[in-house]
Protein backbone atom coordinates (compact mmCIF):
# COMPACT_ATOMS: atom_id res chain seq x y z
CA UNK A 1 0.00 0.00 0.00
CA UNK A 2 1.33 3.38 -0.97
CA UNK A 3 1.64 6.13 1.60
CA UNK A 4 -0.40 9.33 1.61
CA UNK A 5 2.69 11.27 0.52
CA UNK A 6 3.07 9.11 -2.58
CA UNK A 7 -0.56 9.75 -3.48
CA UNK A 8 -0.13 13.52 -3.13
CA UNK A 9 3.03 13.47 -5.26
CA UNK A 10 1.34 11.32 -7.90
CA UNK A 11 -1.71 13.57 -7.98
CA UNK A 12 0.46 16.66 -8.54
CA UNK A 13 2.37 14.93 -11.35
CA UNK A 14 -0.89 13.67 -12.90
CA UNK A 15 -2.39 17.17 -12.68
CA UNK A 16 0.59 18.80 -14.38
CA UNK A 17 0.74 16.14 -17.09
CA UNK A 18 -3.01 16.44 -17.67
CA UNK A 19 -2.62 20.18 -18.27
CA UNK A 20 0.48 20.00 -20.50
CA UNK A 21 -0.83 17.12 -22.65
CA UNK A 22 -4.58 16.46 -22.32
CA UNK A 23 -5.06 12.80 -21.36
CA UNK A 24 -1.48 12.31 -20.17
CA UNK A 25 -2.58 12.47 -16.54
CA UNK A 26 -4.88 9.50 -17.02
CA UNK A 27 -2.20 7.61 -18.95
CA UNK A 28 0.20 8.29 -16.05
CA UNK A 29 -2.36 6.71 -13.71
CA UNK A 30 -2.60 3.62 -15.93
CA UNK A 31 -5.89 4.56 -17.59
CA UNK A 32 -4.62 4.24 -21.14
CA UNK A 33 -7.92 4.03 -22.99
CA UNK A 34 -9.39 7.05 -21.23
CA UNK A 35 -6.19 9.04 -21.74
CA UNK A 36 -6.09 8.39 -25.47
CA UNK A 37 -9.80 9.25 -25.85
CA UNK A 38 -9.30 12.52 -23.92
CA UNK A 39 -6.23 13.42 -25.99
CA UNK A 40 -7.99 12.83 -29.32
CA UNK A 41 -11.28 14.52 -28.34
CA UNK A 42 -9.79 17.67 -26.83
CA UNK A 43 -7.25 18.00 -29.66
CA UNK A 44 -9.96 17.56 -32.30
CA UNK A 45 -12.25 20.08 -30.60
CA UNK A 46 -9.51 22.70 -30.22
CA UNK A 47 -8.12 22.41 -33.75
CA UNK A 48 -11.62 22.32 -35.26
CA UNK A 49 -12.14 25.72 -33.65
CA UNK A 50 -8.85 27.05 -35.01
CA UNK A 51 -9.70 25.71 -38.48
CA UNK A 52 -13.07 27.47 -38.29
CA UNK A 53 -11.79 30.83 -37.07
CA UNK A 54 -8.26 30.97 -38.42
CA UNK A 55 -4.97 31.57 -36.70
CA UNK A 56 -6.28 34.61 -34.82
CA UNK A 57 -8.83 32.51 -32.92
CA UNK A 58 -6.19 32.31 -30.20
CA UNK A 59 -5.84 36.02 -29.56
CA UNK A 60 -4.60 37.39 -26.26
CA UNK A 61 -5.13 40.99 -27.35
CA UNK A 62 -8.80 41.02 -28.31
CA UNK A 63 -10.28 38.01 -26.48
CA UNK A 64 -8.47 37.72 -23.18
CA UNK A 65 -10.93 35.48 -21.29
CA UNK A 66 -11.27 33.11 -24.22
CA UNK A 67 -7.47 33.10 -24.33
CA UNK A 68 -7.32 31.97 -20.69
CA UNK A 69 -9.70 29.10 -21.48
CA UNK A 70 -7.68 28.21 -24.58
CA UNK A 71 -4.45 28.00 -22.57
CA UNK A 72 -6.07 25.32 -20.39
CA UNK A 73 -5.67 22.91 -23.32
CA UNK A 74 -1.92 22.88 -22.63
CA UNK A 75 0.24 22.08 -25.64
CA UNK A 76 -2.61 22.74 -28.10
CA UNK A 77 -3.17 26.25 -26.78
CA UNK A 78 0.55 26.96 -26.65
CA UNK A 79 1.01 25.92 -30.29
CA UNK A 80 -1.96 28.12 -31.26
CA UNK A 81 -0.48 31.00 -29.27
CA UNK A 82 2.90 30.51 -30.99
CA UNK A 83 1.25 30.62 -34.43
CA UNK A 84 -0.60 33.79 -33.50
CA UNK A 85 2.61 35.43 -32.25
CA UNK A 86 4.31 34.56 -35.51
CA UNK A 87 1.58 36.45 -37.36
CA UNK A 88 1.87 39.52 -35.14
CA UNK A 89 5.68 39.54 -35.42
CA UNK A 90 5.48 39.93 -39.20
CA UNK A 91 3.61 43.21 -38.75
CA UNK A 92 5.20 46.61 -38.02
CA UNK A 93 4.49 48.31 -34.72
CA UNK A 94 1.09 49.99 -34.64
CA UNK A 95 -0.45 52.35 -32.17
CA UNK A 96 -3.93 50.87 -31.68
CA UNK A 97 -6.02 47.75 -32.33
CA UNK A 98 -8.08 49.26 -35.13
CA UNK A 99 -4.93 50.05 -37.06
CA UNK A 100 -3.67 46.53 -36.38
CA UNK A 101 -6.87 44.97 -37.69
CA UNK A 102 -6.71 47.07 -40.85
CA UNK A 103 -3.10 46.02 -41.38
CA UNK A 104 -3.95 42.34 -40.89
CA UNK A 105 -6.63 42.57 -43.53
CA UNK A 106 -4.21 44.29 -45.90
CA UNK A 107 -1.77 41.40 -45.37
CA UNK A 108 -4.46 38.94 -46.43
CA UNK A 109 -4.95 37.49 -42.97
CA UNK A 110 -8.70 37.31 -42.92
CA UNK A 111 -10.57 37.89 -39.70
CA UNK A 112 -13.50 35.56 -39.16
CA UNK A 113 -16.91 37.12 -39.51
CA UNK A 114 -19.36 37.19 -36.64
CA UNK A 115 -20.67 34.68 -35.51
CA UNK A 116 -18.04 32.33 -36.97
CA UNK A 117 -15.33 33.86 -34.77
CA UNK A 118 -17.52 33.40 -31.68
CA UNK A 119 -18.20 29.76 -32.58
CA UNK A 120 -14.50 29.15 -33.24
CA UNK A 121 -13.60 30.64 -29.85
CA UNK A 122 -16.36 28.59 -28.22
CA UNK A 123 -14.88 25.39 -29.66
CA UNK A 124 -11.37 26.22 -28.44
CA UNK A 125 -12.58 27.56 -25.09
CA UNK A 126 -14.85 24.58 -24.42
CA UNK A 127 -11.90 22.29 -25.20
CA UNK A 128 -9.97 24.09 -22.46
CA UNK A 129 -12.84 23.86 -19.98
CA UNK A 130 -13.26 20.15 -20.72
CA UNK A 131 -9.57 19.70 -20.00
CA UNK A 132 -10.15 21.31 -16.60
CA UNK A 133 -12.56 18.44 -15.83
CA UNK A 134 -9.88 15.96 -16.88
CA UNK A 135 -7.22 17.73 -14.80
CA UNK A 136 -9.46 17.63 -11.72
CA UNK A 137 -10.31 13.96 -12.34
CA UNK A 138 -6.64 13.01 -12.70
CA UNK A 139 -5.82 14.93 -9.51
CA UNK A 140 -8.58 13.21 -7.51
CA UNK A 141 -7.73 9.75 -8.86
CA UNK A 142 -4.11 10.34 -7.91
CA UNK A 143 -5.09 11.46 -4.40
CA UNK A 144 -7.29 8.36 -3.96
CA UNK A 145 -4.46 6.12 -5.05
CA UNK A 146 -6.40 4.66 -7.96
CA UNK A 147 -4.24 2.96 -10.58
CA UNK A 148 -5.41 1.39 -13.80
CA UNK A 149 -8.99 0.54 -14.67
CA UNK A 150 -9.78 -1.06 -11.31
CA UNK A 151 -12.64 -0.09 -9.05
CA UNK A 152 -12.67 3.43 -7.72
CA UNK A 153 -11.40 3.68 -4.17
CA UNK A 154 -13.86 4.16 -1.32
CA UNK A 155 -13.17 6.44 1.63
CA UNK A 156 -9.75 7.50 0.40
CA UNK A 157 -8.30 3.99 0.43
CA UNK A 158 -6.79 2.39 -2.65
CA UNK A 159 -9.14 0.15 -4.60
CA UNK A 160 -7.43 -3.10 -3.58
CA UNK A 161 -7.99 -2.29 0.12
CA UNK A 162 -11.76 -2.03 -0.34
CA UNK A 163 -12.09 -5.74 -1.07
CA UNK A 164 -13.37 -7.86 1.85
CA UNK A 165 -10.61 -9.92 3.34
CA UNK A 166 -10.29 -12.56 6.00
CA UNK A 167 -9.26 -11.59 9.52
CA UNK A 168 -6.22 -13.43 10.84
CA UNK A 169 -6.90 -16.17 13.37
CA UNK A 170 -4.75 -14.94 16.23
CA UNK A 171 -5.45 -17.86 18.51
CA UNK A 172 -4.57 -20.36 15.80
CA UNK A 173 -7.76 -22.32 16.47
CA UNK A 174 -10.78 -22.88 14.31
CA UNK A 175 -11.52 -21.73 10.76
CA UNK A 176 -10.71 -18.18 9.69
CA UNK A 177 -13.43 -15.64 10.51
CA UNK A 178 -14.72 -13.46 7.70
CA UNK A 179 -15.05 -9.74 8.16
CA UNK A 180 -18.58 -8.26 8.50
CA UNK A 181 -18.31 -6.74 5.00
CA UNK A 182 -17.69 -10.18 3.55
CA UNK A 183 -20.47 -11.90 5.50
CA UNK A 184 -22.97 -9.17 4.63
CA UNK A 185 -22.47 -9.85 0.94
CA UNK A 186 -23.50 -13.51 1.37
CA UNK A 187 -27.29 -13.78 1.85
CA UNK A 188 -28.62 -16.27 4.43
CA UNK A 189 -29.79 -19.63 3.22
CA UNK A 190 -33.30 -19.66 1.85
CA UNK A 191 -33.09 -16.14 0.51
CA UNK A 192 -32.39 -15.37 -3.16
Amino acid at each position, binding site marked *: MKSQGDNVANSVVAMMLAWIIPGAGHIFLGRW*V*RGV*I*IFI*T*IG*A*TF*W*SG*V*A*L*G*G*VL*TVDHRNARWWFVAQMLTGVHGLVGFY*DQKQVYQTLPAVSNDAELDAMLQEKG*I*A*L*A*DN*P*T*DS*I*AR*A*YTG*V*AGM*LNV*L*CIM*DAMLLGLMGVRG*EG*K*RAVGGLPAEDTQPHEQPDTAGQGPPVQSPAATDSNPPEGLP
Partner: protein
Amino acid sequence: MIATIFYNPVSLPSDALLWLLPPLCLAVAIIYKTIRTQNISRLWLDTAVLFLCMMGGLAALMVVGYLLVR
Protein backbone atom coordinates in the same frame (compact mmCIF):
# COMPACT_ATOMS: atom_id res chain seq x y z
CA MET B 1 -0.88 22.26 -46.71
CA ILE B 2 -1.98 21.52 -43.15
CA ALA B 3 -0.81 24.95 -41.98
CA THR B 4 -3.06 26.70 -44.49
CA ILE B 5 -6.11 24.93 -43.06
CA PHE B 6 -5.46 26.56 -39.68
CA TYR B 7 -4.37 29.96 -41.06
CA ASN B 8 -7.43 31.60 -42.53
CA PRO B 9 -11.00 31.15 -41.36
CA VAL B 10 -13.54 28.99 -43.11
CA SER B 11 -16.37 30.90 -44.75
CA LEU B 12 -19.56 29.23 -43.67
CA PRO B 13 -23.06 29.91 -44.93
CA SER B 14 -25.26 31.28 -42.18
CA ASP B 15 -27.68 28.32 -42.32
CA ALA B 16 -24.77 25.91 -41.66
CA LEU B 17 -23.85 27.43 -38.31
CA LEU B 18 -26.48 25.43 -36.43
CA TRP B 19 -24.82 22.18 -37.54
CA LEU B 20 -21.72 23.13 -35.56
CA LEU B 21 -23.60 22.54 -32.31
CA PRO B 22 -23.87 18.68 -32.43
CA PRO B 23 -20.09 18.09 -32.75
CA LEU B 24 -19.49 20.32 -29.72
CA CYS B 25 -22.16 18.45 -27.73
CA LEU B 26 -20.58 15.15 -28.82
CA ALA B 27 -17.18 16.31 -27.55
CA VAL B 28 -18.72 17.31 -24.21
CA ALA B 29 -20.52 13.95 -23.94
CA ILE B 30 -17.38 11.95 -24.76
CA ILE B 31 -15.18 13.77 -22.25
CA TYR B 32 -17.81 13.74 -19.49
CA LYS B 33 -18.51 10.05 -19.85
CA THR B 34 -14.80 9.21 -20.24
CA ILE B 35 -14.08 10.57 -16.78
CA ARG B 36 -17.36 9.56 -15.13
CA THR B 37 -18.18 6.07 -16.36
CA GLN B 38 -17.16 3.21 -14.08
CA ASN B 39 -17.13 0.48 -16.73
CA ILE B 40 -15.00 1.40 -19.72
CA SER B 41 -16.69 -1.19 -21.92
CA ARG B 42 -19.97 0.77 -21.60
CA LEU B 43 -18.33 4.08 -22.52
CA TRP B 44 -19.70 4.43 -26.05
CA LEU B 45 -23.21 3.39 -25.05
CA ASP B 46 -23.24 5.88 -22.16
CA THR B 47 -21.82 8.58 -24.43
CA ALA B 48 -24.52 7.95 -27.05
CA VAL B 49 -27.26 8.12 -24.41
CA LEU B 50 -25.91 11.40 -23.00
CA PHE B 51 -25.49 12.87 -26.48
CA LEU B 52 -29.06 11.98 -27.40
CA CYS B 53 -30.31 13.49 -24.13
CA MET B 54 -28.45 16.72 -24.86
CA MET B 55 -29.79 16.85 -28.41
CA GLY B 56 -33.31 16.08 -27.19
CA GLY B 57 -33.09 18.82 -24.56
CA LEU B 58 -31.86 21.35 -27.10
CA ALA B 59 -34.58 20.33 -29.55
CA ALA B 60 -37.20 20.76 -26.80
CA LEU B 61 -35.80 24.21 -26.00
CA MET B 62 -35.95 25.06 -29.69
CA VAL B 63 -39.61 24.03 -29.88
CA VAL B 64 -40.48 26.02 -26.75
CA GLY B 65 -38.65 29.05 -28.11
CA TYR B 66 -40.41 28.73 -31.44
CA LEU B 67 -43.83 28.49 -29.78
CA LEU B 68 -43.10 31.54 -27.61
CA VAL B 69 -41.93 33.63 -30.53
CA ARG B 70 -44.64 32.57 -32.97
